């Protein structure tokens, strides 16, 4: 009964793992999710003292990961933009997957945020009594709206399912919706631009924190634009990485080499642009912005583990090097190089988010204060684990029952034909 139902939902022409193996996989992640859900319950019902955050480290692991996850999820809007607006047809191969990834990243971030604030029941106050000057209000508005857009973008993928399209009206609806996708892609791009930027602005506007503070354009500090750039640089890399990972786990070929190449090329170009801008910004900040506020640059890098190495690794090793590898066609043609560079690009963005959140919190501002360290509690790790598990589960079900990679059917057919010819 169950397996018949399972077969009926799997798209035509693709091969999926046996139900038992899928069940085991789902069970494993459900277990991870359950532990995290318990940790979240503790924080919500008991108070945030279950985390190791404190009055100094007001933002802990969660915010850092939130920022990272959202940066990596930027692949969704950027791919949509490239496909629907700039008509890069080869990206049709990954757009569905990108939308699902985006949906997971954004909804996961929202869940984490709801647990991370002290009074989640008052979260709607931000909509009702918004402070127009606050970057966080901007972030909240944009993320919610964009999450809505992602849901709308997810609907056609869902409705294309073999069982659902059988229901009268759904197919028509899906068709009509699809025609509007350009509009949604544009809206999504706009919203994404703003909230990626606002997330950067979140720290850039902290005029009391010279380590994070940046001057900028109009109301937006330079980190506003750097965040957009770094997110769209890392987004395609992340999609390439996840696609490769799904290929490995499902043991299927999902997209063509061309698609990989396109993703890598775009990522590389954007990364180079980002590295250039970031370097200029850093130089201006170290020589101009920070000293003007009474903090000579060396003061930021004389504390314990936070030496100048973070800056070097972030910009050169995890920025310039992968960027060079990705814009150089012969190099990125080698799959291991491409993957390593993509990984480095994602790691670079992660390190950037780490520096801006955790290091900003760690560095003392008062001259008579000292550096303090922070290590998350198990509840923080578990809660994040739950979000990862939630993402894996949503993606797994989407991958099994929906068409995330349109090229997969063709590639499978080619593979089967090749195999029968060999036989």
């Amino acid at each position, binding site marked *: 009964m169950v397996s018949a139902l399972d077969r009926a939902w799997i798209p035509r022409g693709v091969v999926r793992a046996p139900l038992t193996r899928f069940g085991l996989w789902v069970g494993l992640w459900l277990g991870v999710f359950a532990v995290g859900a318990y940790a979240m319950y503790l924080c919500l019902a008991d108070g945030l003292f279950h985390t190791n955050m404190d009055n100094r480290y007001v933002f802990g692991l969660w915010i850092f990961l939130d920022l990272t996850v959202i940066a990596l999820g930027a692949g969704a809007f950027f791919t949509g933009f490239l496909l629907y607006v700039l008509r890069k047809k080869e990206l049709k191969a990954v757009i569905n997957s990108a939308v699902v990834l985006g949906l997971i990243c954004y909804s996961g971030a929202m869940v984490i945020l709801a647990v991370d604030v002290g009074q989640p*029941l*008052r979260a*709607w106050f931000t909509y009702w009594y918004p402070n127009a000057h606050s970057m966080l209000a901007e972030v909240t508005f944009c993320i919610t709206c964009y999450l809505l857009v992602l849901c709308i973008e997810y609907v056609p993928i869902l409705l294309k399912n073999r069982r659902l399209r059988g229901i009268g009206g759904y197919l028509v609806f899906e068709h009509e919706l699809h025609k509007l996708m350009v509009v949604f892609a544009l809206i999504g791009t706009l919203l994404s631009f703003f909230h990626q930027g606002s997330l950067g602005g979140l720290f850039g506007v902290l005029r009391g924190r010279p380590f994070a503070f940046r001057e900028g354009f109009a109301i937006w500090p330079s980190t506003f634009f750097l965040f957009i750039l770094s997110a769209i640089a890392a987004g395609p890399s992340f999609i390439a990485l996840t696609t490769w990972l799904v290929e490995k786990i499902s043991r299927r070929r999902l997209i063509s080499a061309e698609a990989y190449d396109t993703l890598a090329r775009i990522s590389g170009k954007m990364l180079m642009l980002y590295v250039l801008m970031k370097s200029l910004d850093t130089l201006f900040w170290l020589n101009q912005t920070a000293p003007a506020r009474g903090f000579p640059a060396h003061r930021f890098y004389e504390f314990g583990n936070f030496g100048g190495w973070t800056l070097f690794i972030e910009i050169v090793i995890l920025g310039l090097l992968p960027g060079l590898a990705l814009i150089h066609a012969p190099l990125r043609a080698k799959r291991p190089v491409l993957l390593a560079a993509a990984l480095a690009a994602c790691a670079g963005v992660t390190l950037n988010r780490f520096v801006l959140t955790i290091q900003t919190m760690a560095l003392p501002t008062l001259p008579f204060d000292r550096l303090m360290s922070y290590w998350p509690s198990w509840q923080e790790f578990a809660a994040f684990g739950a979000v990862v598990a939630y993402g894996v589960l949503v993606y797994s079900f989407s991958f099994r029952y929906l068409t995330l990679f349109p090229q997969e059917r063709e590639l499978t057919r080619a593979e089967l034909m090749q195999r029968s010819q060999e036989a």
Partner: protein
Amino acid sequence: MIRRELIKFAGGAATGLAFTPLPWRLLGDSAIWTQNWSWMPRTPRGEVGEKEANCTLCPAGCAVKVRTCGGTPIGVWPRGEAMCPAGFAGHTLPWHPLRLRQCLNRGRVSSLEEALEASRAAAEGGLAVLDMLPGRTASLLHRVHLSGIANARYIPAPQAEGGTARAMARLAAGSVQLSAELGRAKTVLSVSTPLLDGWAAPRRTAANRGFTLWQAESWRSRTMDLADSRLLIRPGSETALLLGLARQLLQTAGVERRARLLQGFDQLQAAIAHAAPAAAAERTGLSEDRIAALADALLRGQPSLVIADGDPLGGPLPEDARLAAAAVNVLLGAEAFSTRREPPVPKPWRCIECTRLEQVDNHSIGLLIIDEPAPGLALPWAAIAPKLKPEGALVVALTWNRASYARRADWLVPVPVYLESAADAPPPPDTGSWRIAVSPAVLNPPEGAIAAADFVARLAGAEPDSAARLEERQKLAGEEELEAAPAPAFTRILPAGTDGAQLAAAAAANLEGPPVAAHGWRQASVSPLLGKLWQEWDLRPAPGAVTSHPETLRGLGWHADSGARLESEAGQMQVLLEADPTAPSGIIALSAGPAYAQICEAAPNGAWRLKNPKVVRS
């Protein structure tokens, strides 16, 4: 088919609900609910008033006003003068988590009548009242009531405060009471005494204190931080420093002439003879020049005085150090000392004499009543225990809390605390001018609490009337004219107790065991709110904190930043080991608290010491 219809129905219902007030009301109400959680305390409502009072938590007796709401105290604020941090939390003492509210007989809930009955039976074996806070009206009343009981003794706790003044009084002929008047001094040398942190009234030790302070101590105490000149000495070298100082002083012409007038000068000189500058310098770790500079400062900045009382919770300094300090004061002319006038006693009150603890024979007490009216009072149990009869001795603690004597006493009887009954503070140690600092009753004491004096009265078969007696005395004090206290002629004082050989031996004695500098802030246990100062911030050392230089800790094999048990022959206490690179090396600073009194012993020279201390990781 049915399933599909149900889904449609649910869809319709959901759409409909969105257009009713309900979801929005739920959203709004749940948010308001977070502002009105049932487990959140409601602030009191009622008329706000103010009552004049004095803080009776310590001898400073600061003048305060008590703010009340509906009759309940909601805050204590200074009345013109200064207050210490504990004073501001004093009104919360009645609700202290350790507060004793019922009579307990070895942990079993009991009644006052039973406690009285058991006490009456045991009193025949010899009754003694140990007063942990002598000098109050209640202390006088103990003596009044005990006069009606045969074979009864009144024992004031040997306090750390006033140790130097008492040593000087002992040197003086007759039984004159003396008091060091900080207000009159220009230069003060404080030897291992928390002079600016609990020793004297806050109003005297705040900014603009009016005197130059030299602090000689073996660790960086709070007084050390605030002192004008700091002398970091080796632990146990107090006597050596003071004798070295005396020798320096004697080399000054005028001083020697004055000293020669002293009877017993030979003895003093004999002691000083052993305190060669080099020897004193070596013992204390200070340079000879530094000691000379100190002597010079004390001579130039007259009136000057030396206080060597020790720490209220870490224990007094050894008797020889106090005597040496007294001798130095005599050499300095002791101009900042005055005879102390005790608050008046109504004529008809017949009081029995005080018995010093060391005068009490061993195994002579059948019933010991401990009067512990306020937090933070401590006396090593090891000093009390030998005085009890080995068999059948009964210990009754008339106490505010269920911690300090709970393990030792057979009976715990609750007493009213600060603001629960009219009470007065004992005279402060830092001034000879007296007053009766009274706090009125603002709150009702818990059911079953009895004033300590009333308990003793009932034991003696008298009427319990401590409140009326306090009023009587207060009235009398109001009528008394205050006289200017004459400065005593110290040049004629005989340092009778000064045994030169003994002093010299003390100055050269070797230390036993690891050098522990025990200290404590007596008011620490007044309210859990005070934890803000050490638990939620690190302004003061937490009770039970052991601070030391990392090297020293490592040398002892103790691990920093870990909880541990400090064990001695008398008992054990929980401590927290903390490494502090700015701490002087070779010293273990123990923030003692009353728990320390339970594990240390009183040495023959009066100082408290830990016997064979060990740290065991817990």
